[in-house]
């Protein structure tokens, strides 16, 4: 295994007095795809939100690409621009066109010229298969299209790591596939991905490791084949029977 790009050791986090993440230890190698699942309230979203410091942990250490995330960090913005994030609610900027959504950060954060940024944006919009929607506003697109724009917007920053926070949970069943297809392609291209999702088919197809969380702890982690066919923990078995039975 090459040097890990993400190294979390003995990390704890509280929301006020509520102990939301407990003794998390996790290392992610470059190019690795990790699927995190678990019941709601298990801390899985909070965990990946700690990786670009949308949430701050109180104990332990998180290192992303060798930089330790803590209060003394001066260049949080540059760390964040190397870590792309896709949200459940898309969070596109509604007052800007699709193209402007994709070029805003490259222009203002990475100081690219408008021409460079637009060329890059069109390339990624092509890749998520919506090049013809570039001049529309987010409000004019379907949920699946919006989420694909959100993926393109994150990719425009050329991130080394992509975080997905339940990217398909707010979508109609028919649109889930178009977003998952884009994510599978991205995985095949070698992107390092951490994905919170309940799409077990996706986990089987692309994940190198599946992590199961409950009550703020990592209960079990394994390769997908072993994880699904032979879960070690009672809690995991119960969860999988709930998720896979319908």
């Amino acid at each position, binding site marked *: 295994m090459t040097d890990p790009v993400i190294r979390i050791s003995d990390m704890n986090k509280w929301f006020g007095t509520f102990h939301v993440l407990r003794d998390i230890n996790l290392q992610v190698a470059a190019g690795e795809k990790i699927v995190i699942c678990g019941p709601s309230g298990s801390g899985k979203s909070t965990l990946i939100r700690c990786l670009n410091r949308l949430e701050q942990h109180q104990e332990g250490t998180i290192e992303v690409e060798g930089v330790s995330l803590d209060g003394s960090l001066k260049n949080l913005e540059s760390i964040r621009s190397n870590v792309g994030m896709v*949200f459940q609610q898309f969070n596109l900027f509604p007052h800007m066109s699709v193209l402007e959504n994709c070029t805003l950060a490259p222009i203002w954060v990475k100081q690219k010229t408008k021409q460079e940024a637009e060329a890059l944006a069109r390339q990624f919009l092509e890749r998520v298969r919506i090049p013809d929607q570039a001049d529309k506003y987010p409000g004019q697109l379907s949920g699946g299209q919006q989420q694909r724009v959100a993926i393109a917007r994150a990719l425009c920053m050329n991130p080394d790591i992509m975080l997905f926070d339940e990217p398909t949970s707010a979508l109609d069943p028919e649109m889930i596939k178009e977003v998952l297809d884009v994510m599978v392609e991205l995985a095949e291209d070698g992107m390092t991905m951490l994905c919170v999702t309940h799409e077990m088919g996706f986990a089987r197809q692309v994940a190198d490791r599946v992590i199961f969380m409950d009550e703020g702890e990592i209960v079990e982690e394994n390769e997908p084949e072993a994880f699904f066919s032979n879960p070690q923990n009672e809690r995991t078995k119960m969860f999988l029977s709930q998720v896979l039975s319908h």
Partner: protein
Amino acid sequence: MSAKTWTPTPARPAPANTVGFVGWARENLFATKFDSALTVFCAGLILYVLDVVFGWAIVDASFSGEDRNACLKQVQGACWPFIDAKLGQFIYGRYPEMERWRVDWVFALGLLGLVPLLMPKVGFKRANVIFMLGFYPLFSFFMLTGGSFGLVPVETSDWGGLLVTLVVAVTGIVGSLPLGILLALGRRSELPIVRALCVGFIEIFRGVPLITVLFMASVMLPLFLPDGVNFDKLMRCLIGVALFASAYMAEVVRGGLQAIPKGQYEAAAALGFGYWKTTRLIILPQALKLVIPGIVNTFIGLFKDTTLVLIVGLFDLLGIVQLHFTDSSWATPETHITGYAFAAFVFWVFCFAMSRYSIFMEKHLSTDPNQ
């Protein structure tokens, strides 16, 4: 077995009494007996009011004359010659007649800069903004006050009428928007001292009447300044009005800021935007668009509140109109009604224009396909 062939039924025109004017009237004016009665009543009311206004302003009105005799008729209507004779005073106040061209230049240049600025399709917005916020205020200042470039000095105590109304209103509007935005951001700041200062400022200025602020600015403030230090009364009023309006503006803008979902901040942060870039590029454009009606509401309120500068001895449009009621050569029963009607009309024109422009901008900026 052969499939049936289906031919669509040809379209027929809709019944005559459901389309066109007749259809519209049936649906909107006379749908029920109650609607019909209401329509007739309202139409009568409108005709009656129009008749009274038209009769007073046109039919029974006097249009020409040199003094009060022109307006002393059997049936009294508006005394328009009074307005005609005093128009110069109403616009410029006691600004010396020889120097009034300077005011005209300021008005003309302002209009010339403002109109293209307000039209979204006209380009050069950046240059236009620099002209209107950089060059124009300096130009207006030197033009109106004089004392340099070979211009005769004109004391601000000689300014009056529409000139004072516009100077106070425009400075208030231009000053209060950026100040209000900063105050609103400060009030939502995570820094306790910044937040406390902004909350204190907003609550103090919002909690006192504008008259108090103006009175403090013009009478109390000089008492606190060291001897010999004194600045212009109009200037003090401008600052007072701008600060007062900014407190209201801050609360309007805060309303917009609160409507922006947390996800917008998170998406911006995840892309690597810092606080100021997030605020400027992502949050404010959305928040300000949401509260255009509230912003323009504040502008309109401010525009009308300028009449209160009368309390500290500055004569705005309304003040100067009232001042001229005392002119005995124009003393008629209709003089003050005509004067008030004129002042009301001028104020209405400005406020209505702002209102229409705000509606236009709301539509222009809308990206929501469902509207």
